[in-house]
């Protein structure tokens, strides 16, 4: 069966107008023809009305379809983000081996965030200073300790609040271009910092989903690294 379209609806409406016009233009004495036109009109009117209703329903369905397509796209986007978060947490908490946790963190930052230049610092000693425990993609490797409050990395430790470059990477106190700096926390206390330097060229910038993942890393990487330290202490003492 042929599917009714907007063109069909318009054609029916035009036919109705034409019948009305012909009927009005008929000279006197053509009553039988006028009667036939009226009969034709009577048959046509329900079809015109029905087509108009169907057309309205079609427009409503099309609107609903568009809304569902948008909802599906949003669900897929959230699904992809959740998958990424799940993978990150599974990798970080899948081991108590310190080397494996740091490797997982490096892989997460590279594969899920698109950054191959990064460093992880932990607060060590009394008074505590930030010591690099992992560096990747930056040469020469960072070796110097950073005092809390010095440079963006040091400030993030003091404030406990993540810093994200608004535009391009921003040079930190040592001149390295910094894109993001996230405090690592355990029970709300800062234990270190995850620093992201330049992103991959094709990555361009951090997206809202990346910021969510960084937030998760701040808590879960901090906890995972803390767990490895506790494990090492336990191993030494036993």
């Amino acid at each position, binding site marked *: 069966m042929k599917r009714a379209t907007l063109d069909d609806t318009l054609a029916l409406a035009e036919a109705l107008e034409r019948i009305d016009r012909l009927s009005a233009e008929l000279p006197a004495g053509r009553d039988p023809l006028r009667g036939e036109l009226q009969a034709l009109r009577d048959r046509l009117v329900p079809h015109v009305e029905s087509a108009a209703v169907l057309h309205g329903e079609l427009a409503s369905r099309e609107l609903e379809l568009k809304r569902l397509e948008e909802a599906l796209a949003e669900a897929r986007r959230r699904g992809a983000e959740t998958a990424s978060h799940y*993978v990150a947490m599974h990798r970080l908490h899948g081991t108590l081996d310190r080397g494996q946790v740091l490797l997982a963190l490096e892989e997460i930052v590279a594969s899920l*965030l698109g950054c191959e230049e990064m460093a992880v610092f932990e607060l060590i000693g009394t008074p505590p200073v930030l010591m690099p425990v992992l560096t990747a993609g930056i040469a020469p490797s960072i070796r110097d300790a950073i005092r809390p409050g010095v440079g963006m990395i040091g400030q993030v430790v003091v404030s406990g609040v993540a810093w994200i470059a608004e535009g391009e990477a921003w040079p930190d106190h040592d001149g390295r271009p910094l894109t993001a700096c996230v405090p690592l926390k355990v029970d709300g206390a800062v234990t270190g910092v995850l620093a992201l330097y330049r992103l991959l*060229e094709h990555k361009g910038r951090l997206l809202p989903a990346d910021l969510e993942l960084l937030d998760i890393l701040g808590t879960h990487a901090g906890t995972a690294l803390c767990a490895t330290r506790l494990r090492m202490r336990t191993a030494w003492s036993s």
Partner: protein
Amino acid sequence: MTIKRTMNKKILLVDHSQTSLFLERMILRQGPYDLVTAADGEEGVREALAQRPDLILMDVVMPRMNGFQALRELRARPETRQTPVILVTTRGEPANVEEGWESGCSDYLTKPIDPEELLTKVKSCLGA
């Protein structure tokens, strides 16, 4: 009576990053695919010859044998010459993309992986 049997397509995932393999497995698990993995290019070539997959997803930066070398090795062998290979890599620079095509890849995908893009390219390569 005819019994219709549907066979899952087999995909070989080659990547030294456990994180990337994990994510790829999560994404592709949604489809009718059997997944096998390898941790570097050398193992990837070995698994490709042993498993005869319908499609290979290959990282580029890997220990022992990188993705370009592994791809050239696969293209040189009659058993795997026609197997579609999608390079999945952080290396998105034009020179690397060009080397990928010259090595004989069927498609090129940059990390971070976009799940929709990966599924679309996989379906396209498998003709499904």
